């Protein structure tokens, strides 16, 4: 085994994911460069990857979120951008972890709608969602599909 010498020690990396009709990752990157002081920023198809000192990254992500608060989503990332252990340029195919994000990108429009609506409606009047731990009766459409699959 060889020694491991880490890079970017003391930094944090964050994904900024854009799901908006008005803002593109390029717009966000330009805004990010306007306010950044030496952080590393990578523009991707879904948004940005930002690496730097924690307080600088927090400042930039807070400012970027203001651009379109209901359609910009931010999460932490373990690896810095372009890390050969994760970057698809080295591995081929999608980056590990991208599939999870891709799946959630299909749900994000509903969440964005929810974020917009809770500003307009009184949150106390919105009913709670169904409890997933409650036993659910078998859906009639699912039963039909099961019967059809058995008959064919």
């Amino acid at each position, binding site marked *: *085994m*060889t*020694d*491991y*010498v*880490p890079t*970017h*020690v*003391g*930094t*944090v*990396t964050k*994904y900024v*994911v854009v799901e908006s009709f008005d803002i593109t990752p390029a717009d966000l990157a330009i805004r990010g460069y306007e306010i950044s002081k030496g952080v590393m920023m990578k523009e991707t198809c879904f948004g940005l990857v930002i690496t730097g000192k924690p307080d600088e990254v927090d400042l930039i992500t807070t400012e970027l*979120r203001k651009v379109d608060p209901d359609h910009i*989503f*931010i*999460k*932490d*990332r*373990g*690896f810095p951008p372009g*890390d050969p*252990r*994760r970057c698809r340029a080295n591995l081929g195919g999608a980056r590990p*972890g991208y*599939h*999870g*994000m891709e*799946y*959630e990108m299909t*749900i*994000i*429009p*509903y*969440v*964005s*709608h*929810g*974020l917009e*609506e*809770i500003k307009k*409606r009184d*949150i106390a009047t*919105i*009913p*709670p*969602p*169904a*409890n*997933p*731990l409650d036993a659910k009766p078998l859906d009639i459409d699912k039963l039909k599909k099961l019967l059809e699959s058995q008959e064919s």
Partner: protein
Amino acid sequence: MTKVFIYPATSLILSDMVARFGHTPLSSAVAIRERVQTAGLESAPLQITPEEPKKGLKWAAVEVPSGVRGRMSLYGPMIEEAEAAIIINDADLAFGCMGCARTNELIKFLLRQKDIPKLDLDYPKSEEEGVKFVAAIKRFLGELGARS
């Protein structure tokens, strides 16, 4: 600020929601970052060394596969640290090999054993469900803020 464990631990939506409403999400990225930024022996890709399954013995017995114990060395300390949890129950994206699947079961079991506020949800499948989903999370996190 309350430390909220999110399941799936890689969830973009939950991580964002928790941070957006003023709390600290405990996600796998934080645990991985800690390992990736610590000097030691080269153990690509996640810097999970043979020491990790030993640490995982705190949460899983010795006859449990090392894959589960290694993963638990990432998630176990976060579950202990967690002051609340949000769990999405129909997270198909969290599927995986037996190591991942059994670790996920163990994570959910440990969270349910722990006496902390928990919010169980499914992913929204329509706009109205999206409103209920966001409102439920906001209410839950607001109550945490009032409690702390």
